[in-house]
């Protein structure tokens, strides 16, 4: 099943890589499946004359449902009938194929460069119509429309908002020394449609999304030393918000977007600060001889989690967002660093291990359980999807840095690989406000 699936994906990736615009496209692999996932048949959508035939909406929907780990889309080769609407579904066929749900749909050309995808979701067992809906969009954004269909299906079945129609940011690097080049990129959550946000001959790192998804904060060495920029993704306009002596790193927008947590060393040693983005006033939050960095906000904006080696080795600590009440959070593993927090604040994922091997682990704050969800030796930079169903992280394979997307339970992984060069420091963007 997976061989066939990968072949299909490879063909899709090849087709996209053929276009020069997509020279930096990512390819997809699914190294392991999930037998306990919910079986769902996404029947190839009927395509009206004139509708874009080069991109299969149902393939994108099926792939989305597969990679989140909670579903198992029926392989295309096993789909023996092609109903396009609910009235055409012969339910005994899908019961025989042991499917729990079935999605059927139609891609309609609505003229003026627009398409409309009409789709229906049924339970196979009691033949119940759960959803009949239509999503319209630009023909050029057919992948975005497909992700929104997947989000609607996901939410109807799980009760949780889908996060397939979101974007990710990451940094690519090529070459070394004087031939080095770095780029900050933004792509769809499945790695398609990569776009350059900024390029530099000097290192770029630590991209962080504003909560409205319109801006990225990042650290750049283009001035010869580190500085933090905030850039509008749509217009490209940007400004330096911090270029103090020493390290200006690890920016993180507060949940309401009004403040930026960051790590500043002032040439001495890094501490956590919070900048009011209106006045640019700085408040020092930690004051310690240790390295304090990688701040992230709890969803309520009241607590900041960060990495500190004040105990000798890096561990995750927390502090009130206005300062005070510092306490250690992680106690499993020799070292823990670079936390990411789930939307409900209940889970913390981080890079965990010793100095020679580390993987991504998820800490459940209520139970205290600690679950490794990655299998590499140098896995870092985890970033939760806005609904916490999946995470992105950076891994090292050979001498190459690659990105993985992994389901929150660690059961399904998907590798996002650049055509050439390294990919690193992924950041999963917020729910998308359409119009962006």
């Amino acid at each position, binding site marked *: 099943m997976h061989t066939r699936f990968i072949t299909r994906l490879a063909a899709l990736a090849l087709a996209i890589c053929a276009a020069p615009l997509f020279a930096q496209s990512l390819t997809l692999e699914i190294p392991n499946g999930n037998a306990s996932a919910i079986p769902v048949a996404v029947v190839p959508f009927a395509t009206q004359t004139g509708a874009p035939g080069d991109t299969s909406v149902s393939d994108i929907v099926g792939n989305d449902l597969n990679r989140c780990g909670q579903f198992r889309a029926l392989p295309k080769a096993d789909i023996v009938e092609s109903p396009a609407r609910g009235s055409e579904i012969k339910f005994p066929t899908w019961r025989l194929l042991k499917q729990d749900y079935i999605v059927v749909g139609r891609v309609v050309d609505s003229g003026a460069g627009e398409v409309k995808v009409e789709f229906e979701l049924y339970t196979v067992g009691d033949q119940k119509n759960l959803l009949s809906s239509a999503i319209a969009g630009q023909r050029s954004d057919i992948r975005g429309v497909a992700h929104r269909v997947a989000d609607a299906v996901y939410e109807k079945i799980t009760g949780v908002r889908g996060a397939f129609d979101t974007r990710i940011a990451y940094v690519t690097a090529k070459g*070394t020394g004087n031939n080095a080049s770095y780029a900050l990129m933004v792509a769809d959550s499945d790695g398609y449609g990569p776009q350059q946000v900024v390029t530099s001959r000097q290192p770029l790192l630590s991209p962080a999304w504003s909560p409205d998804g319109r801006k990225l904060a990042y650290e750049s060495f283009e001035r010869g030393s580190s500085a933090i920029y905030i850039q509008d993704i749509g217009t490209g306009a940007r400004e330096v918000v911090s270029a103090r002596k020493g390290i200006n790193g690890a920016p993180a927008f507060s949940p309401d977007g009004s403040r930026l947590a960051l790590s500043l*060393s002032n040439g001495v*040693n890094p501490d956590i600060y919070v900048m009011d983005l209106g006045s640019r006033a700085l408040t020092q939050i930690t004051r310690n001889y240790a*390295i304090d*960095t*990688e701040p992230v906000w709890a969803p309520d904006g009241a607590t900041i989690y960060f990495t500190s080696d004040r105990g000798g080795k890096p561990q995750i600590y927390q502090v009130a967002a206005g300062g005070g009440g510092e306490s250690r959070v992680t106690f499993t593993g020799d*070292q823990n660093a670079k936390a990411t927090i789930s939307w409900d604040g209940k889970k913390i994922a981080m*890079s965990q291990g010793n*100095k020679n091997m580390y993987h991504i682990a998820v800490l459940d704050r209520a139970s205290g359980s600690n679950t490794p969800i990655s299998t590499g030796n140098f896995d*870092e930079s985890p970033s939760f999807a806005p609904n916490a169903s999946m995470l992105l992280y950076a891994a090292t394979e050979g001498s190459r840095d690659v990105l993985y997307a992994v389901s929150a339970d660690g059961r399904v992984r998907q590798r996002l690989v650049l055509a050439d060069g390294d990919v690193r420091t992924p950041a999963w963007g917020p729910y998308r406000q359409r119009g962006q």
Partner: protein
Amino acid sequence: MKNLRVLLTTVAATAALAACSGKKAVKPPPPPVDNGGVTTAPAQSGPYSGPEALDKDSCLRQRVIYFDLDKTEIHSEFQAQIACHAAYLRQFPGAKVTLEGNADERGTRDYNQGLGERRGNSVSSAVAAAGASTSQLNVVSYGEEKPVCREHNEECWQKNRRVEIVYTSKQ
């Protein structure tokens, strides 16, 4: 404790100054003469003939200091290197260096920037203690972003845990 270590390091660096590449101990140049607002630099006096020494002198040509894992202490084998650069900076007060701190790939990127800065600061303190002015010294940490070696083994990591002395002004 950390301060004590830095102090010991700088004392060692100062002591090593005299031993630098068989050169004689460097005499401090006379202070600049103030002529009613016009400051004139004294004629060059010191062990080095001029900026070309940076390319020719075997000690000055060494510009990388390597570190142990997670450590910022400077090994004694690098004291001579620190001392001769300090002597050069002292002789040419207009010269400036950037001390580029680097870490190996292990650990997170932001944390490694902190580690690279610690190493840069350690070298900066040692060079200052050996006679350079702090205004001639600038520290930039690249963390793990500028490796010279990309293999995943100790031999390679050793090469990446380093501070590079980069002259941004030679005299």
